[in-house]
């Protein structure tokens, strides 16, 4: 099978980089998990804060590679024309890869404070905030890449066929770039700083990224099920509508205890309690559409990933988010392992899985076949289950650790100091580490699946 548009193949570069960085992210995840129970592991060479920065920054960078690759694959096909500029896409790829690698390498090679000095952070301070630790020059690089990317994709869409899928994708991608600009606002006032920091973090993952997620999933579902576009687009509209209706003011669930006015306790609780709705609808949508399928696409693995995304994003973002989103509950759970549990499953279920969904669908086509040989698909499906079950158990063990932490440190009549509590709940950190290793094995098998040969599938 050949690509409909030759320029789509630029996505392959992006997907390969994404997977490579994903491996790095998980290796550092395993290191961090070990540091939780073996406190001086790699100390002082790689302290926890550095390893964590590598873990989270690699996640963000590889997901961005995934989103960009997905857009380069999807947009020409939806717009029914070649990409505006393949050359630009390739140049931006190398800039982003080299910049991303340089940023992560600098975390590991140079003390962070020294990195701040070397990059002139004092003249334009933006470093040292969670997830936004990149040196200012790196952030500027990210903006340039994002703008070039948006220009390329935007020019393609605007001069081609405009579908609901590519318009919603474009809105999500534009929002991603716009809200990132708040990363440059770092006031001395800690409350203001925290308040607007969420304009990047929350409005990304519980806002515009949901538009990207839903549109990518809709695209793959159209392709693998052959269900009528009208129906899929109707679902897509209503899902992203609910995501924004609940998620915008839902930002308020971060404004409970950081020095912001009391009305956020109510607004944040009520609106974020609605946030599971779009994820639940996403699950209904995916299963509904797969049940109504008009064709049996030979790529079973892609369909599995698509259904998995719908279910796991509902569990991770929806259910585990709701668990601690009401202000009276969050009063006790705020900043504990409960948050970590939710963060892990939500990121995996929603964003990791949707990128793996589109890779699973598009990669075989870019390699000249409609679907991978069945043997390769079986290996890929094993990796799906190992990674997904691994993540479910990571989440369950962190939740158990979190419940105990909340009780021992905050709820009992004789609250214990943080570090004493950490030692008491260490068994759950060991179990989490074991689940993390299962995840890593799943990831290795995932990579192996790309090299498994077998009988070609007709298509």
């Amino acid at each position, binding site marked *: 099978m050949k690509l409909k548009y030759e320029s789509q193949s630029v996505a392959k570069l992006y997907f390969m980089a994404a997977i490579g960085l994903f491996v790095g992210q998980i290796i550092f995840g395993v290191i961090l998990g070990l540091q939780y129970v073996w406190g*001086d592991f790699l100390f002082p060479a790689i302290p*926890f*804060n550095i390893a*964590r920065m590598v873990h989270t920054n690699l996640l963000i960078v590889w997901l961005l590679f995934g989103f960009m690759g997905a857009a380069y694959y999807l947009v020409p096909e939806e717009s029914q024309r070649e990409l505006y500029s393949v050359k630009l896409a390739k140049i931006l790829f190398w800039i982003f890869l080299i910049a991303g690698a340089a940023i992560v390498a600098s975390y590991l090679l140079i003390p962070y404070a020294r990195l701040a000095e070397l990059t002139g952070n004092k003249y334009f301070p933006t470093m040292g*905030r*969670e997830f936004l630790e990149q040196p200012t020059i790196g952030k500027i690089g990210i903006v340039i890449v994002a703008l070039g990317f948006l220009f390329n994709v935007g020019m393609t869409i605007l001069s081609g066929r405009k579908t609901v899928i590519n318009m919603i994708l474009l809105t999500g991608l534009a929002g991603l770039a716009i809200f990132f600009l708040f990363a440059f606002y770092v006031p*001395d*006032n800690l409350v203001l700083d925290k308040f607007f920091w969420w304009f990047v973090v929350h409005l990304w993952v519980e806002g515009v990224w949901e538009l990207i997620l839903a549109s990518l999933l809709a695209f793959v579902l159209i392709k693998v099920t052959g269900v009528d576009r009208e129906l899929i687009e109707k679902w897509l509209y209503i899902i992203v509508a609910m995501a924004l209706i609940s998620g915008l003011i839902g930002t308020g669930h971060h404004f409970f205890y950081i020095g912001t006015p009391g009305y956020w*306790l109510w607004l944040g609780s009520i609106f974020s309690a609605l946030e599971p709705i779009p994820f639940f609808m996403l699950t209904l949508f995916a299963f509904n559409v797969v049940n109504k399928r008009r064709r049996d696409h030979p790529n079973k693995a892609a369909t599995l990933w698509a259904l998995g995304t719908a279910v796991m994003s509902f569990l991770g973002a929806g259910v585990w988010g709701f668990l601690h989103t009401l202000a009276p509950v969050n009063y006790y759970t705020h900043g504990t392992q409960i948050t970590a549990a939710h963060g892990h499953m939500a990121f995996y279920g929603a964003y990791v899985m949707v990128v793996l969904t589109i890779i699973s669908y598009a990669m075989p086509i870019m390699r000249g076949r409609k679907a991978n040989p069945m043997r390769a698909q079986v290996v890929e499906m094993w990796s799906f289950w190992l990674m997904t079950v691994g993540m479910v158990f990571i989440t369950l063990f962190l939740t158990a650790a979190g419940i105990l932490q909340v009780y021992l440190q905050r709820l009992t009549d004789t609250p214990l100091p943080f570090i004493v509590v950490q030692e008491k709940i260490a068994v759950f950190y060991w179990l989490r580490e074991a689940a993390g290793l299962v995840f890593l094995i799943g990831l290795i098998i995932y990579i192996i699946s790309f090299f498994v040969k077998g009988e070609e599938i007709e298509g």
Partner: protein
Amino acid sequence: MKETFTKGMARNIYYGGSLFFFLAFIGLTVDTVNKLPKTDNREAITEVVAFGKSVWEKNNCVGCHTLLGEGAYFAPELGNVYTRFGESTEAIKAFIKSRPVNGIKGRRSMPQFNLTEEELEGLAQFLKYANGIDTHNWPPNIQG
């Protein structure tokens, strides 16, 4: 979905709903920024405190600690550390200064950051300022 619910209706909910709630969010943002002086302890932000915040950021403290519940969950909450350390900035400084370079065998230990006296003072004053922010009585108790 039923045929009576058309794509046009879905589209209108998307555009109308998003626009309405986006504008509402902007309105709430403006209101919050206006009301912050009552709760955010801004009168305590001196030059020393502002410098202390830059020390906090430059050393990526949030990579292990939480501050008002946000950050990493590897080390104690610091939004109330001033109270926890007996309202003593000297105690905070002494703790940071005394961290062993090679850590503590088998246990978590804060790195030795080799901060100057000025940086230590700034950081301690910054944490004292953070301690004074009105957080609706969070954290629930002194342990953070």
